[in-house]
């Protein structure tokens, strides 16, 4: 089976401040290598400021890498080929509250990607919006709602609906569960896994919660200060961590679980 998305030697150098007032602070990401297949889940773990979100931005094309390449279905994603990227790699933001426009209804929010990227007429767009709302466990009537009428869990579902409405192949999620309380979190996790099974999505997500990571991911990428310190299958990493940093992470997680029981 071929790789759905693969990343080779991706690097990025971030200088804080303007070019003419360059200061000492410099952040280098990478080189990053990984690949996932359809239906697989990759978790990116690491401390704050380790470049996880930056990696997500590079994947969806908000930032341009300095070197390296991203291949989707073994086809290289060019820098200016945004259409192809938009249709196939979609992002879910950390704070679903912020990522939904407060001034327009859900149907306009969900219609926007369809308007911009497909040739559907307005009726077909509406049908698609209704279908997608049902798919994420909301009602078709929710399309008349505004953001402030929804609960946090519902907002996260809408954010997810927005991501899957274009039938993408990969979803990149930046801490999608961080802002949710435990019951809604597990609902969302289950919803995601269900959708992944149904649609055969490749799913890349960033999380601090190693419990969720262990539960849903097939592979793990551990990052520290912009470098990938360890990557591999979830089971392998949780049972036989090689790197010092990974060992600490896993130990902390184990301590937390045994403390709970």
């Amino acid at each position: 089976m071929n790789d759905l998305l693969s990343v080779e030697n991706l690097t990025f150098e971030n200088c804080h401040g303007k070019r003419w007032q360059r200061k000492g602070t410099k952040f280098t990401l990478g080189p990053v290598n990984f690949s996932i297949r359809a239906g697989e889940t990759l978790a990116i773990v690491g401390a704050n400021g380790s470049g996880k979100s930056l990696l997500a931005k590079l994947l969806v094309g908000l930032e341009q890498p300095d070197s390296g390449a991203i291949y989707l279905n073994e086809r290289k994603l060019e820098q200016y080929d945004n259409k192809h990227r938009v249709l196939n790699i979609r992002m879910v933001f950390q704070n679903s509250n912020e990522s939904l426009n407060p001034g327009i209804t859900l149907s306009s929010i969900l219609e926007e990607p369809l308007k911009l990227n497909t040739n559907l007429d307005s009726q077909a767009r509406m049908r698609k919006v209704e279908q997608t709302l049902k798919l994420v466990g909301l009602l078709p009537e929710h399309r008349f709602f505004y953001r402030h009428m929804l609960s946090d869990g519902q907002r996260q579902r809408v954010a997810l609906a927005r991501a899957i409405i274009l039938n993408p192949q990969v979803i990149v999620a930046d801490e999608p569960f961080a802002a949710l309380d435990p019951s809604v979190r597990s609902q969302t996790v289950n919803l995601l896994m269900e959708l992944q099974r149904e649609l055969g999505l490749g799913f890349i997500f960033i999380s601090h919660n190693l419990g969720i990571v262990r539960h849903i991911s097939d592979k793990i990428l551990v990052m520290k200060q912009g470098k990938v310190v360890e990557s591999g299958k979830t089971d392998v990493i949780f049972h036989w961590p090689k790197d010092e940093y990974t060992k600490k992470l896993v130990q902390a997680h184990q301590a937390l679980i045994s403390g709970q029981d």
Partner: protein
Amino acid sequence: MPRLNLYQEEFYPSPIQNTWKEFKENHAALMSLYCVIFFIFVMIFGPLLAPFDPLQQHIEFLLVPPAWDNNGDISHLFGTDGLGRDMLSRIIYGCRMTFGISLVLVIISMLIGVSLGAMAGMSKGLRSSVVNHLLDSIMAIPTLLIAIIIIAIVGTGLVNSMWAISLALIPQFIHQTRDIVRQKMKKEYVLAAQLDGAGKVHIFFNSILPNMAEMLVVQVTLALSVAILDISALGFLNLGAQAPSPELGALLSEGLASAYVAPWNIAMPGAAIFLMMMSINLVGDGLRSALRYRLLR
């Protein structure tokens, strides 16, 4: 027997409905809104309401006091001026002129200001900051002063004063729009729209404008009161509308000549300007607090 309500209809107000609900709580603002609506009504149907032509001189009724005075005459409700012109008709036409011209000027400068401000807000770097600081320095000068300077260059007259005032109003709109656009551009939903492949124009009209409409309404009411004040001030100084035309400021300056004999000649246009300004300011204020509290709840 009380009616059983089996199906509870859930009502979810839109942001605009929420604002209206908050606005209704403020009685002063609501009354002012009715007042503004009354002025708009007068502005549209003025010629049908006015009993006489504003320029017609009634030789037999010179300086007649208002109807409630002992010497007053019911055919001239607000009295007449030194040339025997009916005050009520002149004020109706004056409101029509002052209010209508201000409204047109504000709409024009809003369109220009918002489009320039949007361009400034969406662009980055040196160009944007040049626009910003240049405008800030212009904003430090009162609009009336800018208008007078422009009139000193192009000459007096109503049309010239209109140009001057709309030019003086534009910087405020640019500044406000630029601020809001910059602020919204940092939001995640704009980022999400960018990821949908939206261009700058699309982002402005679909993501930013729906959230900006309310701020614009507030800014428009403020600009409207400034425009009315400036138009009548220029008319009063004989820089704007010239003598026979029934503009409220020009009426005031004409009435000033006979202020001791016929104080109603300055009281009436003054009261009209006062009422207009107060209602518009109160509506603006009510809208602003309604928007603020709507966001809090």
